[in-house]
C-alpha cells in the first residue's frame, strides 16, 4: 500500500509540473532520388531509436561507439530495409545496401544507410511503404524527400499513413497522346482476331463476283474499284468500333468480356466463311460495321487495362482510336498492292481466298470454343 502511494506520489508530481518539455521526437529522414528505373536512397535513422530496437550499446556503458555500431551493421540493414518497400506489389524495386555511414543531426547521431533499388520499369508512380519502428513507437515518423527530374516532394510517413504513392512525372499532354497512339497501333498489330476479321473482309475486295456458272470470282477491273471497296469496309469497321469503344470507355455500356470475346471469334468465322460460300458481297461493309461494334468492346477492355488518365479521358480515347486506325492503314497499305497484283492468279483465288479463309475459320473456331466455354485447347 505504501509502495503504491509512493508510486502515485512521484507520478503525480511529474504530471502536475506543467506541460511537457520535450526533445525532438523520433524521426527518420528518407531521401529518394528516382532516375529511370533506378531509385537511389539515403536513410538517416537515429542511433537512439536503433538502440531501443536492437540494443546497440554492446557493453551497456551508456555510450554508443562506432565499433559497436559496426558490429551491428548487418542487423541494422536487415531490420531497416525489411521495413521499407518501394514500388507496388507487382513492380517491386528491391533496395540493396551500398554503404553505412554516420551523420550528426540537430538532436544527435544517426546511422546513414545508402542503398540503390532497381525497378522492373521506370516507375510513373512510386509507392513507398514504410513500417520502421511503428510497432515500438507509434509516434515515430518517416520524413520523406523524393526527387525526380529536378523536382522534389516531401511526405510524412506515419503509423496512420504508412503507404503512400507519389506520382513522379505527369507526362505532358503530347507525350500522353503519343503513348496512347502507340498502344492503339500495338493492339491492332498484336490482336490477331481483329486482323483476321479485317483481312477476311478485304480478301474479296480485289475480285468481283463472276456471272459465269461454276466460277465464283473474277479479277477486279481496276485498282480504283478495289481501293474503294477496301475503303468502304475499313471505314465502316472504324466508325463502328469507335462508337462502341467510346461508349464502353466512358462507362455508358459495359458487356461481359467473355461475351464480347466469343462474339469477336464468331465474327471472324462468319467473315471467313463468307469467302468460301459467299452470301454477302457488295454489303461487306455492313458486316464490317455490325461486327465492328463488337470489336470496339474488345478494344475498350484493353484501354481500361492501360489505366485511363483522369482528366484526359477524351484525349486517351481519340489517341488510342487513331492508333488503331493507323495500324489498320499500315496493314491495308501492305495488303492491297500485293493482293491486287496476285488477284488474277489461281493461287490467290483458291489458295489464299478459299484455303486461307478455311484456315482462318479453323483458328477462329478454336478461339470461339476456348472463349465461349472457358477452355484451353492448345
Amino acid at each position: 500500500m505504501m509502495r503504491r502511494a509512493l508510486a502515485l506520489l512521484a507520478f503525480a508530481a511529474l504530471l502536475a509540473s506543467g506541460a511537457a518539455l520535450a526533445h525532438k521526437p523520433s524521426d527518420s529522414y528518407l531521401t529518394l532520388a528516382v532516375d529511370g528505373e533506378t531509385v537511389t536512397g539515403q536513410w538517416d535513422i537515429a542511433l537512439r531509436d536503433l538502440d531501443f530496437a536492437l540494443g546497440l550499446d554492446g557493453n551497456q556503458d551508456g555510450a554508443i561507439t562506432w565499433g559497436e555500431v559496426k558490429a551491428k551493421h548487418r542487423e541494422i540493414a536487415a531490420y531497416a530495409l525489411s521495413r521499407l518497400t518501394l514500388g507496388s506489389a507487382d513492380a517491386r524495386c528491391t533496395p540493396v545496401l551500398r554503404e553505412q555511414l554516420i551523420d550528426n543531426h540537430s538532436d544527435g547521431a544517426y546511422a546513414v544507410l545508402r542503398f540503390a533499388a532497381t525497378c522492373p520499369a521506370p516507375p510513373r508512380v512510386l509507392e513507398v511503404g514504410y513500417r520502421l519502428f511503428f510497432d515500438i513507437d507509434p509516434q515515430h515518423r518517416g520524413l520523406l524527400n523524393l526527387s525526380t527530374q529536378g523536382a522534389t516532394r516531401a511526405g510524412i510517413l506515419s503509423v496512420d499513413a504508412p503507404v503512400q504513392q507519389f506520382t513522379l512525372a505527369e507526362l505532358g499532354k503530347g507525350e500522353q497522346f503519343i503513348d496512347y497512339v502507340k498502344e492503339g497501333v500495338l493492339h491492332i498489330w498484336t490482336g490477331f482476331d481483329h486482323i483476321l476479321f479485317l483481312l477476311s473482309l478485304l480478301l474479296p475486295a480485289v475480285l468481283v463476283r463472276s456471272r459465269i456458272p461454276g466460277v465464283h470470282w473474277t479479277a477486279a477491273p481496276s485498282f480504283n474499284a478495289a481501293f474503294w471497296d477496301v475503303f468502304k469496309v475499313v471505314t465502316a469497321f472504324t466508325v463502328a468500333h469507335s462508337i462502341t469503344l467510346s461508349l464502353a470507355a466512358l462507362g455508358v455500356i459495359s458487356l461481359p468480356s467473355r461475351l464480347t470475346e466469343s462474339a469477336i471469334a464468331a465474327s471472324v468465322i462468319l467473315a471467313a466463311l463468307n469467302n468460301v460460300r459467299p452470301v454477302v458481297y457488295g454489303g461487306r461493309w455492313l458486316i464490317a460495321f455490325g461486327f465492328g461494334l463488337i470489336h470496339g468492346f474488345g478494344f475498350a477492355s484493353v484501354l481500361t487495362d492501360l489505366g485511363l488518365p483522369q482528366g484526359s479521358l477524351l484525349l486517351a480515347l481519340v489517341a488510342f482510336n487513331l492508333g488503331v486506325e493507323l495500324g489498320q492503314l499500315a496493314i491495308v497499305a501492305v495488303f492491297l498492292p500485293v493482293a491486287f497484283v496476285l488477284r488474277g492468279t489461281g493461287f490467290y483465288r483458291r489458295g489464299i481466298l478459299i484455303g486461307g479463309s478455311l484456315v482462318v475459320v479453323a483458328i477462329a473456331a478454336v478461339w470461339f470454343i476456348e472463349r465461349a466455354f472457358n477452355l484451353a485447347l492448345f
Partner: protein
Amino acid sequence: MRRAATAVLALTLYGFAVAAPFVPADDAQVLERLPDRSAPQYRDLKRLQASAAAAPDDAASAVALADAYYRISRSEGDPRYLGYAQAALAPWWKNPEAPTAVLVTRATILQSNHEFDRALADLTKAIAREPRNGRALLVRSTVLTVQGKYAEARADCPKLYGLVPEFYVFACTAGIDSLNGRAGPAAATLDRALSSVPATDNAARAWGESLLGEIAQRRGDASAATHFQAALAADPRDLYTLGAYSDWLLDHRRAAEVIPLVQSETRVDALLLRLALAQKALQRPEANATIATLRARFDASRARGDVVHRREESRFQLQLNGDAQSALRLARDNWAVQREPADLRVLAEAAAATGDSGAQEIVRQWLAQTGLEYAEVAAMVGAGGGGRK
C-alpha cells in the same frame, strides 16, 4: 569542467553545421550518449517489459509498463518514451471501452501530446466508472487548468481527500487559486503544507517549491529565486524548474547563471532555447551555433507536422530570429490550445512587439477575467497593476 562541457557542445553544434555523412576514423569514437541506465527509473524497466511481454493481453502489466515509460518521458523530456508508452497500450489504444486503468494512462499520454480534449473524454469516462480514482481526478484537474478552465479544474480538488497524499490536495487547490486572483493566500497555503504535511517526498517538494517560485515571479517578489533553488535542491534534474528558474534569471539580467543550469540538458528543446537566450544576452560567440541548432529542431518539428512546440518557437522567432509577426501567429495558435501563464506571457510579448491591439486586448481581458497576478505581462499590455491583489 565547465569549459570542457562548452567545448563539447560547440563541437556538437559545429558537427551539425557542416553535416555530411562520414565514416568515423576510430572504432572507439563515441557517437551518442544514452541516459544513465543505472538511474532508478530504468531499473524496473526490464522486469516490466518482461512481464508485459509474457502476458500481452493483461491490461495491468501493460499499464505498469506504459506508466514506467511515461515517467521516463517526463524526467528525460524525451518524447520517444511517450511513443513506447503508447505501444505498450497498443491492444487497447483505440478501444473506447478500454479498462479504466488503461483509460487513465492513455489520457496521461494524450495530454502530453497536447490532445487535451481526447484526454478529458477518457478521464471523464474513467471517473464515471470509478468516482474515487484519485489519479484520474488529479490528471483531469491538471488538464483543465492548462486549458484555463479553472472552476471545473478546482471542483476536482476536494474530491481528492483520502485518495492521494494530503499535500497534493493542497497543491491542487493552491495551484489553481494562484492563477485566479488569490495568489497570496495560495502561496501561504503551499508554504504551510510544505512545512507541516508529513511524508512529502522530494518530487512533491520540488513541485511545491517550483509553484511557489512561479507565484513569486509573477508577483515580482524576489523570493522566487530561493524557491526555485529549493526546488532544484529537492530534484536537481527537474526540467520544468530548470526552465522556470532560467527565465527568472534571464528576466533579472543574470544570464551567466543560466548557462551552467542548462548546458547539459540541451537535448530538451525548451532548455536549449534558454541556453541560446543566455548566450545571446551575454554576446557569446557560441550563440550563433546554438541558434542554428534550435532552428534546425523547429524545422524538423514542423517537417513532421508537430505543433507542440509553439510556445517555445514563438519566443525563438521573437527574441532570436527577429520575426515578430511569426511569433505572434505562433503565440495566438498556441493560446488557442493551452492557457498557462507562460503561454499568456508569450502572447503578450509578441503582441507588444508587433503592436497588435487585438492580441493585446486578449491578454488584458484574460487578466481581468481571471484575476491573474502577473505584473510584467500587465505592464506589457498596459493593463495597470496586474490583476487583483
